[in-house]
């Protein structure tokens, strides 16, 4: 049974002094140090980036020659998928120590194309279907939020409760019904983890997080017009499957780390994972339910809405889940956290990947 033996982040949210590769390097070195494993022992490597042979480039940069390599890219959910794949490979004994890293300096390099606007992909091939209407990244999620409000009466105030209860709920509209504070921040940042076997982890310096179950799914690529039901995400498929593989139920989950590109992403994910019925997400999040000291602590590091969002945030969800399971959550530690559910979302609500992590072996 594979485990996560080390985790780390860089000192986000801003790295003007670093390149993207440099951010990867810092995250990698810290995650290995956290595990107490040397670079020499790394025989597997995985990362997701925006250009082909991204992971090969990083191996060259690091001076690694691993016998297992993965650069599966499912957008923001990539790192949950990479952990799932690494766990299979470690379980089969084809690799002993898989290093998985993420790095981005998108804030420092931000040009006009980034931000809540953005003009999208070239209008050729399938992308042309959605690329010629002036829609934005936020606009795609706004279409989901608008339909959810229409079908279920979900309010902007309920979405704002997800953002942060203390926030001013009256920020300006970016793409109706989503306001500026319904959107994640834009930052630099890196994070990494080390996947190894339970056996190898026994004499390491820290207790590992056990990978109890994992699954992923997709509904469409980047055209939201192709999403079969705009309010039903891949989490409805990956969540129950990951829980079944882990042999745990939703009631066993002590802490949640959910991809929060936008508030509507969290609301749909809560419904699709089964924490509440479809359409009841708005009422479900009221009353501080998701607070770190509430009944369902969610995104205890502040999430992408408040902490950091360097582009593909999935690795940060894993890092925070492992820290909570180890009791390293400092001021935001969830008391007695033994089971964490991590769910990454990628693309335009396109892909979903769920990990069930535990502080004890099954």
């Amino acid at each position: 049974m594979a485990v996560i033996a080390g985790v780390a982040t860089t000192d986000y949210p801003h790295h003007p002094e670093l390149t993207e590769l440099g951010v990867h390097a810092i995250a990698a070195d810290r995650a290995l140090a956290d595990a107490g494993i040397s670079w020499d022992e790394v025989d597997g490597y995985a990362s997701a980036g925006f250009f082909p042979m991204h992971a090969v480039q990083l191996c060259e940069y690091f001076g690694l020659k691993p016998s297992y390599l993965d650069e599966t890219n499912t957008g923001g959910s990539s790192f949950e998928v990479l952990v799932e794949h690494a766990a299979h490979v470690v379980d089969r004994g084809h690799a002993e120590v898989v290093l998985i890293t993420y790095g981005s300096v998108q804030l420092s390099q931000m040009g006009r194309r980034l931000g809540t606007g953005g003009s999208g992909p070239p209008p050729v091939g399938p992308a042309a279907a959605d690329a010629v209407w002036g829609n934005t990244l936020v606009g795609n999620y706004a279409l989901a939020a608008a339909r959810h409000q229409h079908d279920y009466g979900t309010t902007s105030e309920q979405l704002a409760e997800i953002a942060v209860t203390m926030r001013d709920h009256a920020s300006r509209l970016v793409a109706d019904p989503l306001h500026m504070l319904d959107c994640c921040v834009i930052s630099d940042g890196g994070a990494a983890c080390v996947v190894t076997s339970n056996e190898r982890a026994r004499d390491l310096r820290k207790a590992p997080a056990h990978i109890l179950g994992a699954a992923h799914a997709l509904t469409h690529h980047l055209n939201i017009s192709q999403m079969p039901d705009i309010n039903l995400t891949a989490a409805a498929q990956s969540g129950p499957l990951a829980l079944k593989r882990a042999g745990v139920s939703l009631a066993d989950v002590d802490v949640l780390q959910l991809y929060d590109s936008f508030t509507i992403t969290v609301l749909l994910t809560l419904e699709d994972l089964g924490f509440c019925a479809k359409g009841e997400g708005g009422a479900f999040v009221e009353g501080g339910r998701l607070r770190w000291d509430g009944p369902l602590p969610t995104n205890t590091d502040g999430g992408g809405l408040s902490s950091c969002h360097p582009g593909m945030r999935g690795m940060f969800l894993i890092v925070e889940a492992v820290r909570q399971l180890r009791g390293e959550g400092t001021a935001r530690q969830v008391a007695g956290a033994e089971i964490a559910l991590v769910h990454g979302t990628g693309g335009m609500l396109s892909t979903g990947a769920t990990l069930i992590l535990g502080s004890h072996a099954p």
Partner: protein
Amino acid sequence: MTELPEGAKPRVAPIPDAESEAFWSGTLAGKLLVQECSVCGQRQLYGRSLCTNCHSASLSWIEASGRGTIYSRTIIRQNPSRSFKHLIPFVVALIDLDDGPRMMSNVVGTPAEDVHIGDRVRVTFEPVSDAAALPMFELDT
């Protein structure tokens, strides 16, 4: 193609390829085409070389009525692109065509705040290049 404000660029024009050429040619003739499978009858957009339902390659383009219902809509209030900034605020909508598939488009001709989910719409074409006109929608009152 109307005159643009200073600093603005023309709208983004689609670049037809082998699978979308028929669709965009249709728009130049004022026709909204959808792809129909001759085996299972499914209608789909965008154009493909196989049916996403039964995976048959037996597909043809048929003319849709151009009428539909707004499934969802947003009002874009921030878009830094010079092709769209001057159009703000404008409506991006998902339209469920009476003839089958769902498509993204703009709803024009009405103030953005007056466009709602469930509204009936009909197609109207805005030329954007020698190869395509954009199938946009107006409220069908």
